[in-house]
């Protein structure tokens, strides 16, 4: 077993790296690697991904393992589980970190089981105990509590980290690139991807955004979501939604913020026509500043926000969006 730390990089639809890899590299450098003494490494898996090594080196990855295989083009639980498990078995890193993305959530627990490793999900803080066991913090109980958890001395110690929880800091290094191969031949794979439907929104990614504007059932229709998008675009924010809005078909599922959907922690969260249910709060309660627009003075959201306007969104949003547009244009 080595003392190395691995950060598994995960890609967006457009083929770019997710910011969470840089966040994890920065935080691991700050809190873990000095004390552990191993090397900070990145694990890059995908198809046609080799070009991303420079970016990872910019954030301090001294060693970059690259597994470039056409079989990794689309995310398949089975293929990614084999790939990561085999490489961990081969190199025996001490700690393995990935982003708590839709993919991380799906295959990381499985890899951990295969390797008999301890694993935690969606953590917001990483450190070490005196005897170098991983120590993390995470939300629990619908985000009403924060747990501190310590790993047993078994290795590897595995965790996913919540995007937007750590700052990024450049730390350019000369990286050693190691090309890997794993037998992913189709005969070994029993699952099949039949169809993939994706569309880029052109807005920032919800979990990475510094500002988020979300709409609820009160928007009333898909067309009315233009009020949400207009404000989001003026602010350069990501657009989110409640489950009620998604259920009603006003917007796609990947916009859902909450216990089931995404967990976001932006500097600014604007909740438009959202009542403020516990399950929604679970996904946005750690935002720095929360703003609510709601016509019901008794809406629970008014008990959990910093600023708010009690009013009809259709009346309030146009002047609000215009004001902001004017102000930001002057800057």
């Amino acid at each position, binding site marked *: 077993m080595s003392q190395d730390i691995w950060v598994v990089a995960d890609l967006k639809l457009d083929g770019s790296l997710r910011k969470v890899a840089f966040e994890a590299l920065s935080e691991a450098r700050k809190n873990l690697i000095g004390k552990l003494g191993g090397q900070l490494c990145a694990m890059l898996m995908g198809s046609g991904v080799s070009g991303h090594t420079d970016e990872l080196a910019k954030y301090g990855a001294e060693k970059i393992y690259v597994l470039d295989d056409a079989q990794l083009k*689309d995310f398949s*639980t*089975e293929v990614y589980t084999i790939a990561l498990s085999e490489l961990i078995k081969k190199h025996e890193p001490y700690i393995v970190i990935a982003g708590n993305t*839709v993919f991380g*959530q*799906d295959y990381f*627990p*499985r890899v951990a*089981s*295969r390797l008999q*490793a*301890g*694993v935690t*999900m969606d953590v917001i803080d990483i450190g070490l105990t005196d005897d170098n066991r991983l120590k993390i913090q995470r939300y*629990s*109980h*619908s985000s009403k*509590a*924060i*747990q*501190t*958890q*310590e*790993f047993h001395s078994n290795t590897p110690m595995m965790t996913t980290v919540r995007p937007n929880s750590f700052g990024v800091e450049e730390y350019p290094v000369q990286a050693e690139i190691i090309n890997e191969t794993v037998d992913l031949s189709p005969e070994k794979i029993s*699952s*099949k*991807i*039949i*169809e*993939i*439907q*994706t569309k*880029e*929104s052109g807005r920032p*990614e919800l979990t990475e955004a510094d500002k988020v504007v979300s709409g609820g059932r009160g928007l009333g229709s898909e067309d009315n979501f233009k009020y949400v998008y207009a404000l989001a675009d003026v602010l350069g924010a990501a657009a989110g939604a409640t*489950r009620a809005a*998604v259920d009603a078909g006003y917007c796609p*599922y*990947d916009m859902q913020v909450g216990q*089931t959907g995404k967990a976001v922690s932006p500097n*600014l969260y604007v909740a438009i026509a959202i009542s403020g249910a*516990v*399950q929604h709060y679970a996904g946005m*309660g750690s935002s*720095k*500043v929360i*703003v609510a627009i709601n016509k019901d*003075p008794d809406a629970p959201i*008014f008990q959990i926000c*910093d*600023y*708010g*306007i*009690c*009013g009809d969104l259709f*009346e309030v949003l146009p*002047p*609000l969006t*215009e*004001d902001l547009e004017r102000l930001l244009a002057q800057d």
Partner: protein
Amino acid sequence: MKILVILSQTQDTEAKIKVSSSGDSIDTEGMKWVMNPYDEFAVEEALLTREKHGGEVILISIGPARCIDALRQGLAMGADSSVHIKDDVFADSDSFATAKVIASEIKNLGEFDIVFTGMKIIDEESGQIGIQVAEELGVPHVSLVSKVIDIKPDERKVVCQKEIDGGYVVVEVPLPALITCPDAMNEPRYASLPGIMKAKKKPLKEVGLDDINLESIGLSRDSIGKEGARVKTVEIVVPQIERKLKIIKGEDDPKVKGEEIARSADELVKLLREEAKVI
């Protein structure tokens, strides 16, 4: 088809929580317990599957005596029988050990076709157990399934839609398989009164430590319970987030009206720039 559901009991979502005096757990005194909300969707999906393809629905849970209520609720919704792994030594086991124990009990039930479970438990929110049970069973899993499109028992296949960033993917995996369920994939039925009456007569099997051969599943007394956990909670806090609660309201009516609207927008923008400094 033999359809299984792994379910658990959890503290009510709305519950106010308080840390216990030991500082590493939540005080459960007087707590209201409910079936884990995501597991209701798993039970419903299992029942829908049985309606379409026939067969039986078996519920499995590991936990203290009170978990029987969650199992009874599942039986009252329409499941056929249940298995309760009940022994205090399993309390506070980590997901790794819990998954192994659940998987071994599933194997004891013989061949099966499909397993449904909730995407996560809303108190611990680990979101691991279902997936790890699948790994222990050596069967594929599909997580966060928004729709089970087709189950083909004869071809031994299941086709599901899974939500991903920017859209969705349709995947096909061989049976037996395990599926984790988010909310909104269906509408869980309520337990009817006749359902509740009938549930009282349905088989409730209990399994204890003595019935499980820990060594054969790679565990020992030292790897179960809190002490044996690969990951252990050492502290839990309930953070108090102070919010400013500055709500701009109208004069006569709480709702801003007429000229108040433009003024409220101006005021909010000013607060965001000068006080909160977020724009």
